């Protein structure tokens, strides 16, 4: 089997072993889960290092045939199975998934109830996320998406704070709708591109293969797929993406979820699961319906700016660190929309950078505020203050994370923003000018929260508390290192994203 198959399979195998092996204690469960995801991380790094230079397509492809639906379409059979592979877009996202998941597991508190179940679901979600990014056909993609949905649901419900079941239901219903909308749109796109209007003839072979669909989109001269149909498909897809990605006004599940989920789950949901929507938009929207993305560019850009500002203002009003981080993430992902809407190399690459940057920073912020909560039993801004005295290291890293989030140069946030705005100003200058407000507001809400948390006279509840432990240093330092590394040497991920951008803009661009 190919490397990308094992990339997805490794955490899955760990999950299965967690279920079947007897007498697994907390440490053993965590160890097994970490090993599974660590294998994925190593595989991702191997693929990264050996990724063929200049390749704009999928590499490390692997397929498993499962069953055939006979005579599904004009007498041809529809093959159903699992297939995986990575390209310049999905490989960095897959690597980030394994990276953040490993750190979430390694940094998790040691006294979790039912650790076997906990690490089982955490491994399942990781496998699901890797499957989403590495899927090469729609069937695989949708199955993987469902795994992430149910896995996260159980993590929130079973391991969250008091009151989490309600939040979990909200999460499930929202993202369930998102899945349905995306399912409809994606099957429609497959039908449109490969079945009904294939370039090879009116009665093409219906295919759920993503490379085939991309290839058809590539050859499709505009006009074969009726614009109305394609436009409707994109709007349905956008609906799914908006819910999936927690874009305003379909976002309210996200702050609620983050408020109630525990720290590792928040890292995975905030850092990874809320990036799948953006991935879908890039892969299927930009990749397969480029003309429609351009056609609806203004709409997407305006929604992007609304998200930037709405998220930032809402974050300013929050009194709870977790809700603040949630809205900050929404604001950041608004910039992804603006970059995509611009349909330019800089805008698309900026959007991809922002996905990674927001992923790393969100995970880091959740981890650090989680560490603060472990000590003070609160993440309410009004109760905190003066933490710098008792925990200078945690406070210092929290500041770095905030600075990265507000886009300080030499962090990943900045390099994402400048590219996205270069794209934005090319195509939608007015919207981009308004969107700049996000740069100011992010400084306002983040530094306000920092001022309330680490500056000032030491709060009573923070007296005599200890600073970070070895368990906490590992995720903190590694996440911070990558935030800085990407900010200082952006070509690290830029060379892969650049290939993907070339591939995307090769189509109708």
């Amino acid at each position, binding site marked *: 089997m190919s490397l990308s198959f094992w990339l997805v399979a490794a955490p899955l195998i760990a999950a299965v072993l967690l279920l079947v092996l007897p007498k697994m204690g907390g440490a053993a469960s965590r160890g097994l889960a970490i090993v599974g995801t660590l294998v994925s991380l190593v595989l991702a790094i191997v693929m990264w290092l050996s990724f063929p230079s200049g390749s704009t397509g999928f590499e490390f492809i692997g397929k498993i045939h499962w069953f055939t639906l006979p005579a599904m379409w004009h007498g041809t059979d529809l093959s159903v199975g699992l297939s995986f592979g990575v390209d310049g877009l999905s490989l960095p996202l897959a690597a980030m998934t394994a990276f953040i998941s490993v750190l979430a597991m390694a940094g998790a508190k040691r006294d979790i109830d039912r650790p076997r179940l906990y690490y089982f679901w955490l491994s399942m979600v990781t496998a699901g996320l890797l499957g989403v990014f590495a899927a090469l056909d729609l069937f695989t993609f949708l199955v993987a998406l469902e795994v992430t949905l149910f896995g996260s649901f159980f993590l929130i419900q079973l391991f969250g704070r008091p009151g989490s079941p309600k939040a979990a239901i909200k999460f499930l219903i929202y993202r369930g709708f998102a899945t349905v909308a995306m399912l409809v749109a994606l099957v429609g796109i497959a039908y449109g591109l490969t079945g009904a209007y294939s370039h090879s003839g009116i009665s093409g072979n219906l295919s759920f293969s993503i490379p085939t669909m991309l290839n058809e989109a590539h050859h499709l001269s505009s006009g074969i797929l009726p614009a109305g149909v394609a436009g409707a498909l994109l709007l349905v897809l956008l609906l799914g993406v908006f819910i999936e990605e927690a874009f305003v006004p379909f976002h*309210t599940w996200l*702050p609620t979820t983050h408020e109630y989920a525990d720290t590792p789950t928040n890292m995975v949901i905030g850092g990874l699961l809320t990036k799948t929507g953006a991935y879908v938009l890039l892969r299927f929207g930009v990749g397969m319906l480029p003309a429609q993305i351009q056609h609806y560019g203004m709409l997407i850009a305006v929604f992007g700016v609304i998200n930037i500002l709405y998220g930032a*203002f809402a974050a300013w009003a929050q009194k709870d660190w977790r809700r603040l981080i949630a809205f900050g993430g929404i604001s950041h992902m608004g910039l992804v929309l603006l970059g995509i809407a611009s349909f330019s190399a800089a805008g698309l690459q900026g959007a991809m950078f922002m996905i990674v940057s927001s992923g790393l920073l969100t995970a880091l912020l959740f981890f650090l505020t989680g560490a603060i909560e472990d000590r003070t039993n609160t993440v309410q801004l009004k109760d905190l203050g003066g933490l*710098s005295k008792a925990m200078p290291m945690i406070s210092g890293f929290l500041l770095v994370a905030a600075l990265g989030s507000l886009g300080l140069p030499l962090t990943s946030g*900045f390099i994402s923003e400048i590219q996205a705005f270069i794209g934005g100003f090319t195509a939608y*200058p007015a919207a981009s000018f308004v969107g700049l407000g996000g740069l100011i507001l992010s*400084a306002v809400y983040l530094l306000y929260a920092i001022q309330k948390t680490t500056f*000032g006279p030491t709060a009573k509840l923070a007296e005599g508390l200890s600073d970070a432990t070895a368990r906490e240093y590992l995720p903190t330092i590694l996440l911070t290192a990558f935030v800085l590394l990407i900010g200082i040497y952006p*070509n690290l991920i830029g060379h892969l994203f650049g290939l993907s951008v070339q591939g995307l803009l090769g189509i109708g661009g």
Partner: protein
Amino acid sequence: MVQYAWLVPFLPLVAYVFLLVLGRKAAEGLVAGVSVILTAVSFVLSLFIFQAVGNNPHGNNTYVFHWLTVGNRVFDVGFQVTHLNALMLVVVTLVSTLVFLFSKGYMHKDDRFPVFYQYLNLFVFSMLALVISLNLLQLYIFWEMVGLCSYLLVGFWYFKPEAALAAKKSFIVTRIGDTGMFAGIVLLFLATGSFDYSTIFSAVAHGTLHIGWLSNNGVITLTALLIFAGAVGKSAQFPLHVWLPDAMEGPTPVSALIHAATMVAAGVYLVARTFPLFQASTGATTTVAWIGAITALMASLIALTQRDIKRVIAYSTMSQLGYMMMALGVGAYAYGIFHLMTHAFFKALLFLAAGSVIHAVDTQDLFEMGGLRKKMPVTTYTFLAGALALAGIVPFAGFWSKDDILSATLQSGHPVLYWFGLIAAFCTAFYIFRVFFLTFTGKPRVEEKYEHAHEGSWVMKLPLVVLAVFATIAGFFNSPVNHYGLERYLFADFASGTAGVVVKENVGLMAFSVAVGLLGILLAALMYWRPAFGGEKLSKALSIPYIISFRKFFFDEIYTFVIVGGGKVIAAIVDFVDRYIIDGIVSLLSWIGSVFGTMLKYTQDGQVQTYSAIAAFGVLIFIAIAVFTVGGVL
């Protein structure tokens, strides 16, 4: 030599990393020693580079490295040493070295002494890297880095709530300007495909800047104004000046280095660095000149009445930066830079001397000082040198540069701006000597504070003396004595060999501005030294102007109410909409869903009658729809 220019910022970076490794418990002597020595080496290197650039003005001064590919464009990084940059390197490293030495005494026994030096080294690195940046993108990177260091150092005493607030305020207010600058840089990139100064200037010269939605002239004016927004924030110009006085919450060496000599001057440097862009737009230069003049005058009026010694000097800094902006706005390129240099020396001196006073009496209130001349002679006379330089009294440094600016303003046909500058000059002389007389002459106002007062150790005195020497003689660097050497040096950056306005010597104008300065000193002396009439009486007689000045034209109150308040209201509205409207609709939908679920539960009661009734009802609805549809009603 020039190829080694990267070493100048690199050495403070080495010091930073070294101190980071040493940790928070390192010995004070080691920490300060390493910092001073490495920065001093940077200073010596800078001197050699300064000379090398001057000797070979057309040599290669640019070194480029590839950073990131974006589509078919490339972001480069690297360094470039123009004449302007070389001068900045010398000024920054010299002041930094002296401040590093001074801080050894000033920060003695602070819990976080090593951290203070870490931040300062990081600042010096960033500032020097900013100066030799290859292009606007790189400049912006270090521009934000110096802003970060400023934030960290203003908030250095993090446990003080005022310091925490001031740090946040300084970052956010400058961020507003920086966002404009960010947009300006992005637009220049879109218009020229590059961040490089040279590419942009050549596009300006050929008139080929255009973006799809904006013409060449539109791009020039818009981007110049946007970049100027960044300079306005950084250099604390009206209307983004409100952060600088609050930034005085930081330790005084920080105020001397960052908030007087170097970082706040970066805004002036930026306008100078992009001078060809500004010159291509009358709208932009006029804006720069007026903003500068307004700031110069307004800040000097505020400084008249402040009671806090550091705040007076902070408003003075704003005012002097206003002069520099005004100079660049009227085209007096060389004199703006010249004043930047002299100001760096005499203002760092004034701040360090003030620091020496604060260190001795442990107060910043002018009305708790007095008579310190006897206890602190070195501080007194070095401060006097700085004050004379600031007041523009011949032959001190500030005289030459300020007089050049005023003459250039008048000679380039801006009489109104000239009078702005002249009134500000009068106020300047008055307020700085008000500080001098209140602090050093007369009788002590608070006995116990006076009792404890003493001069600092040599590490604090030596920097004062060195800076006092520069504050006295630096004006001669661009004077008839050396045939206006600095001017000629700076002009070598331009292909035409000159830039903007060149002043014609006018002894009458010089005498006039010195007279204005002396008049200000005389008035201060009559009020605070040999009181002919009391300041109290005068301030009561002029109560309304006094309050306006003392309350700083009410900018803080207005901004807090309108901008911060407005933003908070919007945030609260968004939060309300989010919780009660958007989420309310969601809750409503889920409630409806559960109600339907409950109702449907009752339909499943197993009674055939119920099922048939429902079926019949459904059929009726279908029939009704069919009738209406066919009948054309729907």
